[in-house]
Each structure stands twice: as structure tokens, then as C-alpha cells.
């Protein structure tokens, strides 16, 4: 139909359910209002518009949550999601940090998406997603409220991820009975997927095991324009212009998209050969314009001899995992469950 620069509304309507289209479109339009051409961000309006939910000590569908301030200096909050047990269907306040029960209890450290600039751990869409993860993985989920761009550029988000990782790893109440260690998985969507990768790299460098990485539509990029970027620009909710804006907002000033944060296997990247990098589950949406970078990431892992499973969802757009109203959603959730439980 129209050229890639024009607004092309028709194609994305055909491939997603109506309510998904409404949700993602309203995000898209709201986000367009928040990004300023000079690289600054309308944070007040962003926080005003974001739909948030409080933590909830009363279990809902078998999951309860509470917030923890893990670093007073930076105000780093995490939201912890735990399954309610049969013995303690309604936890009282002294039992929040009761030891997890089980030989092997996976702990998933989750980094929400938002292209490094949007959303929070207590955003409704991510609260919902984390609750689901608890159920399908029988895991404790720790959602990290990392500092966002452009106010906090690289490496703040990674530093916060690392702080949260160390905190989780040092909680005795999160240890699995089998080996008195915390069984950690890292997960994230969009920018969160990117953060998961970098935190995993730092973890293994420090000699701490990570059992697996789960990257949902992870945000990677590079200086070059790939075929998928050119072909899909503007077609399915996302434009190259906005991708560029978010990288400019996150990366250190003056850096380009071949910075290793953005392009870990690019010209400035570092090889993972010989490093005990965890197995990865990488989900790529076939209608995501940055898929070439995501596929290059998978290739990079493979070349370095790392275990990686690619889930390429052909007709999926960004955000398909936010509403459980499509087949891709259920496929991916099953795979995640399998990925995490295979260590038990």
C-alpha cells in the first residue's frame, strides 16, 4: 500500500484482535506525545498516563505481591510476587519473607519493557504479566523498577539490574532446599530483555550462576539499517524514528547504535566464548521491525557456542504477550514454563 513513511493503519489491524489493537495503539499515540524532538521526555505526563496497580497482599488467583525498597540511595524498588500456598492462603505481614518451600524453586528476575523510557514495575500490564509467570513457572518473580532514560542513561538500568540481582542472590529465604542456592532466571521484554542479557553477562563474570535467560522481543539495534527495519517501518505500531529516539535517549551522549549495550555482537561487542553464559529462550515477533537484530543476537549466541532456543512467532506484533487473547501468547507461555521447569 502506502510508502513506509506514511501512516499505514490498515495492515496492523488485520493481524491482532481488536482490543489488542486498541491497547497498543493508545500506547503508541500516548508515547508519541511524550517524546520531544530535543531528546527530552515529558515524564510528568508519562507518569500521569501510565496505569499503575498497587501490590496486593491478598492473593488473587493464587498470587500475592509486595514491594521492597532494596536500595535507599537510588530509591530502587522491586515488586515481589509469590504463590500463595495451601497452608498459608492469606499471608500475614510477618510472613512475606518466609522461606520458599521446595527442593527447587525458580526465582525469575523480571525487567519490564518500555524502550528504557516508559513503564514501571507497578504498571498494570507488567503486574499482570508477572503474576502469570508465577503461575506458569511455579516461581517467585522479582520485578525490578529500574531507573529510566533519558533522565538516567546507560549504565543506570544495568546497574539497577545488577543491584537487584545481588539482592536476590543473597536472600536466604529464596534459596532452594536442594542446594541452598537461589535458582535465578532473568527475564524481560523489549528493553527488559536487553537488560536481562547484560545482567546475565555481569553475573557469570562474577561467578554467580544464572540458570536461564528469557528474552521477549528483546530490544537490540545497530547503526546499519537492516532489511526488516526498512520493510516494516511504521507498519506495525513501531517506527524507526521512535527506535532511534529511544537509543539516543539511553546510550551515552555522542555514542551510536553500535555501542555494545545496543549491539552486543556488533563491531564493539564482546565475544561470549568461554564464558558460562546461561541458556536462552529468545522470542521474536515476525512483525517486529527490529527482528533482524534479534535474530543476529541469537546467531551471536550460537556462534559462541551458547545454548539458545529461538521462538519465531510469524504473525505476532510487539506486545502480543500483554493480553492472553491470541495463540502466540499461549504458545510462548507454554515454552517459558517448559524452559524453567526443565531444571527441576
Amino acid at each position: 500500500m502506502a510508502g513506509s513513511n506514511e501512516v499505514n493503519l490498515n495492515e496492523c489491524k488485520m493481524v491482532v484482535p481488536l482490543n489488542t489493537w486498541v491497547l497498543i495503539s493508545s500506547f503508541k499515540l500516548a508515547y508519541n506525545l511524550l517524546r520531544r524532538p530535543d531528546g527530552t521526555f515529558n515524564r510528568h505526563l508519562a507518569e500521569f498516563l501510565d496505569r499503575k496497580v498497587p501490590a496486593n497482599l491478598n492473593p488473587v488467583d493464587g498470587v500475592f505481591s509486595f514491594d521492597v525498597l532494596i536500595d535507599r540511595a537510588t530509591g530502587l524498588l522491586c515488586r515481589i510476587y509469590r504463590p500463595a500456598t495451601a497452608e498459608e492462603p492469606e499471608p500475614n505481614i510477618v510472613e512475606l519473607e518466609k522461606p520458599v518451600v521446595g527442593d527447587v524453586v525458580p526465582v525469575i528476575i523480571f525487567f519490564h519493557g518500555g524502550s528504557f523510557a516508559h513503564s514501571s514495575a507497578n504498571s498494570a500490564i507488567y503486574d499482570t504479566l508477572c503474576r502469570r509467570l508465577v503461575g506458569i513457572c511455579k516461581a517467585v518473580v522479582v520485578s525490578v523498577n529500574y531507573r529510566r532514560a533519558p533522565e538516567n542513561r546507560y549504565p543506570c538500568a544495568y546497574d539497577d539490574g545488577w543491584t537487584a540481582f545481588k539482592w536476590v542472590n543473597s536472600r536466604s529465604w529464596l534459596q532452594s532446599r536442594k542446594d541452598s542456592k537461589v535458582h535465578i532466571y532473568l527475564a524481560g521484554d523489549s528493553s527488559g530483555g536487553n537488560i536481562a542479557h547484560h545482567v546475565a553477562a555481569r553475573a557469570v563474570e562474577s561467578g554467580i550462576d544464572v540458570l536461564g535467560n528469557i528474552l521477549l522481543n528483546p530490544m537490540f539495534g545497530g547503526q546499519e539499517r537492516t532489511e526488516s527495519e526498512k520493510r516494516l517501518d511504521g507498519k506495525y505500531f513501531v517506527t524507526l524514528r521512535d527506535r532511534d529516539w529511544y537509543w539516543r535517549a539511553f546510550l551515552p551522549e555522542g555514542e551510536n547504535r553500535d555501542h555494545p549495550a545496543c549491539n552486543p555482537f556488533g563491531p564493539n561487542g564482546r565475544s561470549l566464548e568461554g564464558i558460562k553464559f546461561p541458556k536462552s529462550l529468545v522470542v521474536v515477533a515476525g512483525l517486529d521491525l527490529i527482528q533482524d537484530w534479534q535474530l543476529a543476537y541469537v546467531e551471536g549466541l550460537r556462534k559462541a557456542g551458547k545454548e539458545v532456543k529461538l521462538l519465531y512467532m510469524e504473525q505476532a506484533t510487539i506486545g502480543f504477550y500483554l493480553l492472553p487473547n491470541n495463540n502466540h501468547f499461549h504458545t510462548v507461555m507454554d515454552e517459558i514454563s517448559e524452559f524453567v521447569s526443565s531444571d527441576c
Partner: protein
Amino acid sequence: MVLYDSATLGGSCSGSSSSSSSSKPPPLQQRQQTQQDIDGFLAGAGYRVRSSELRKVAQRLERLETAMVNSPADLSQLASDTIHYNPSDLASWVDSLLSELTQPPTCPSEFIMDPVSNQTVVSDAWTTAEPHMPQVHQNISYEQQSLNNQLTVVPAMEEDSGIRLVHMLMTCAECVQRGDFSLATSCLEDMQGLLTRVNTVCGIGKVAGHFIDALSRRIFQGIGGGSVNGGSAYENELLYHHFYEACPYLKFAHFTANQAILEAFDGHDCVHVVDFNLMHGLQWPALIQALALRPGGPPLLRLTGIGPPSPDGRDSLREIGLRLAELARSVNVRFAFRGVAASRLEDVKPWMLQVNPKESVAVNSIMQLHRLLGSDPNRNSPIETVLSWIRSLNPKIMTVVEQEANHNQPGFLDRFTEALHYYSTMFDSLEACTVQPNKALAEIYIQREIANVVSCEGSARVERHEPLSKWRTRLSGAGFRPLHLGSNAYKQASMLLTLFSAEGYSVEENDGCLTLGWHSRPLIAASAWQAVSDGTADFPA
């Protein structure tokens, strides 16, 4: 271990229709049907859209996108200038943006041309995009959702002792609820002992001490209030003033209410503010100054301040009035003040306020309405009486600020638990503020609230805080509809906080209302209301 708690449902939706054009709340049954029609998936994401309206909202979104693309203006500037309201009501939000973008006469021709054929194209595309999976409509009844507890745990130095202390407080409260006072007493003794080993200057030790005191009072002095409520008006005003200075809660309340009142009074020349609790009149200088600077000039402002009678023959209300009149004179605002002395709000009769039918009235209630919730089976419920006469004044706006907590539950243990969390959070936030000589007095102010919630019952218990969701139901049922606080108020509140307070405070938007809290826990909620003009109200059964 310091514990925080919240009883709010952030992002939850009220039963009343928010910015629709209907002028009165729909009857209860209709409202329930409407709720069942809401798209369950979007509700989970914090948006309230009727399934039957999804298609229409989608079309409007498309038009909005086209308008945005074709807009000659810098979008981000437009976004800053526009006031956004209640994002949960997606349809209204989209419509308001659409009208912002399509109003100027420089509307690009591509947009105006062929609206009919555009719509035909759109609807064709939507028919074929119908999902093949059946949509599951989740029945979500927001009014039925029970209040939830939220907790933030802050690791402190004495974790184990802190946890033990909390455990013991809960046990003691449970004994009290059961009527086992001998066990409760021995609990108290144990806790006093533990307190000596815990840091009582900050953290859990500090707030636990106040709760232990309150429990002692209840057990040994009974539930009649006595020394808790015995403070003089002068003392109360002093403590209030220090609480105002030490932390941002009251400043936020005043600021947000003033902003809403200012907007409501736009275009009106005779305005009358009724303040349910004048205290030192701290709220009003800012409004007087804002009115002075109003384009088109200030209105005639009347202020009626309600407060307790002064015991010693001084007319303290009048003194405050005189000072405010001085200020008004200095900025050329025509001003008149009237004091109404009453020990209880329910003793005030509307004729005492002398409202002139030609005036625009604003009723301002900062943490007063909850005091009317005490029930006496022999009398009409005071809250209903007061809300009824407020409504009869037909105010342009009623600003309501209340503690965002569920401290009016009938069960003692539940109330105690809620209060422990709420006040732990509040004390923690106070610690973050700059150390001032008056911080200690601010703490006594809060301590008095704790004592009232925990150790009093019946008419002595006046601190009957209820959360926003309950106030929404109550006020809608009494014939009020919400006036939404917008993104401009939100932004200014956020900015003020950054300027004057410590890191860690957060303003949140909640379905047209604003809350101020510490980290992720809202502690105080501000909302604005207007009397529904026609028909009778639905009084709660």
C-alpha cells in the same frame, strides 16, 4: 523492618460514569450492567472500555493518529499544553485529544476531505479483522473487589527484633479483639521489654512504641477517648501546623484543592468558599493570590471558616479572618470573612453559612468527612445529613481530601493491622524530611491519630478513615459526580514535591483523583465533586 501498607486499588475504576455527558449517576442496576460489559482484557491493563464501544474507540484512535500525523504543531508542545483527564476512560481521553487537534481552523485538508469514505474503508477493514478466538469477558465488579493490602518492606538494622515486635503487636491486638485482656497485658509487658532492645528513634521501633501505647490505653483506660481526645483547640492547631510544615501531605491537599477551586471559579464574579476546618487558614493565602492574578481580575471572595469555639473568650476564627482580609486587601481582592463556631461538623446548619443564591460556592473538606462516619443507631447518620445539605447549596465544586486508608473496619484486628502499615509508612516518610525542631510535634499529631484509631470506640473514635473507592461509592450515592483532576494539577503537584520534599514521595493519578504517597503506597487522596443538578440522589439503602 518497617512496613508499609496500602488499602487502595490504584487504577481501579469507580462505579460512576466519569466524563460521560449524563447528568446524573445511572440507577444502581444499570450501573452493574454497564460494568459487566467492560472488556476484561483491557481492564486488566487499567483501561475501562465497553466491549460494545471497542470498535468506535478504535476508529477514533485511527482518526487521532491521522490528526497527529497531519498536525502542523509540535506534538510534544501540544501534549504539554493540553490538560489530560482520567486516562482509564480511554474513549474520553482519545476524544479530548481529537478535539484539541481538530479545533484550530488550520485543520489540514486531508483530514476534512471525505470523512464518509474514510469511515467505509475503516469499517471494512475491521470486519475482516474480527478475531477468531472467542473473547472471554471477565466479569469484573469494581465495587465488589475488597480492599487490598500492599506492603513495602524496608530492611533495617534490627530485622529480627523488628519482626518479633510486629508479631507480638499482632498477637496482642488479636487478644484484645478476643477480649482476653490478661494475655494482652502480658503481651504488652513483653513488648515493652523488647522495645528496650530496639532502636526507638526511627524505623519499626518508633512506630511500634506508639502502637504499644495505644494498646495500653485501650486495655487500661478503656475506649472512651479521655486523654486522647482531650487536647485543646489551641494544641490541636499547633500540632496541625507542625504537621503541615514537616511533610508535604497537607500542602499537597491545599494545593490540589485550590487548583480545582480556581478552575471551578473561572468566569464567576461572586464566589464563596466554605472551609470545613479553618485551623490557621493556611490554605487560603495561595488561593487569594491566585485569584488576584486571574486574567480579567479577581472576583469578590467570601470565605466562611468553620472551627471549634474558642474557650477563653477569644474569637480565634475572627482573628484568622482578619489576617486573611489584610492579605486580600494588599492584593486588591474584595474579601469578606465569616467564622462559624461549631464543636462538630454535624452541628453546622446550612443557614449559618449564609450562602447567597447568586454566588458560586466551593465546599472544601480537608480530612473532615471521615469524622462524620460514626454511627449512632438512634440518630440520622451525620454523613448523610451533611452531604445532603452540602448538596442543597448546589456548590460549583466540593473538594475532598482524605487519608487513603481503611481505618473504619468493624473488626479491631483488621483495623489495627491496617493502621500499623499505614502509619509505619507515614513515619518512614517523615524521617526522610529535613530534620526540623517541629518534626517532633508533627509526630505527636500523627500519634494522636494512631491513639484514636486504636484505643477508641463509638463516638470517641473520630478517625474513621476510608479509602477513595469507598468515598466514591458514598459520594456518588449521595448525588455527587466526580470532577476530574487533570494532568496540570498532577504535574504541578509533582514539581512542588521535587522542590520542597525529600525523594521518595510520589503523586499518582487514580481514575480522576490524585494521591500522594510514599514510594508506591498512596497515603492521602484528593478528589473533586459537583452536585448532580437534577433529580433525586440515590441514597445508599
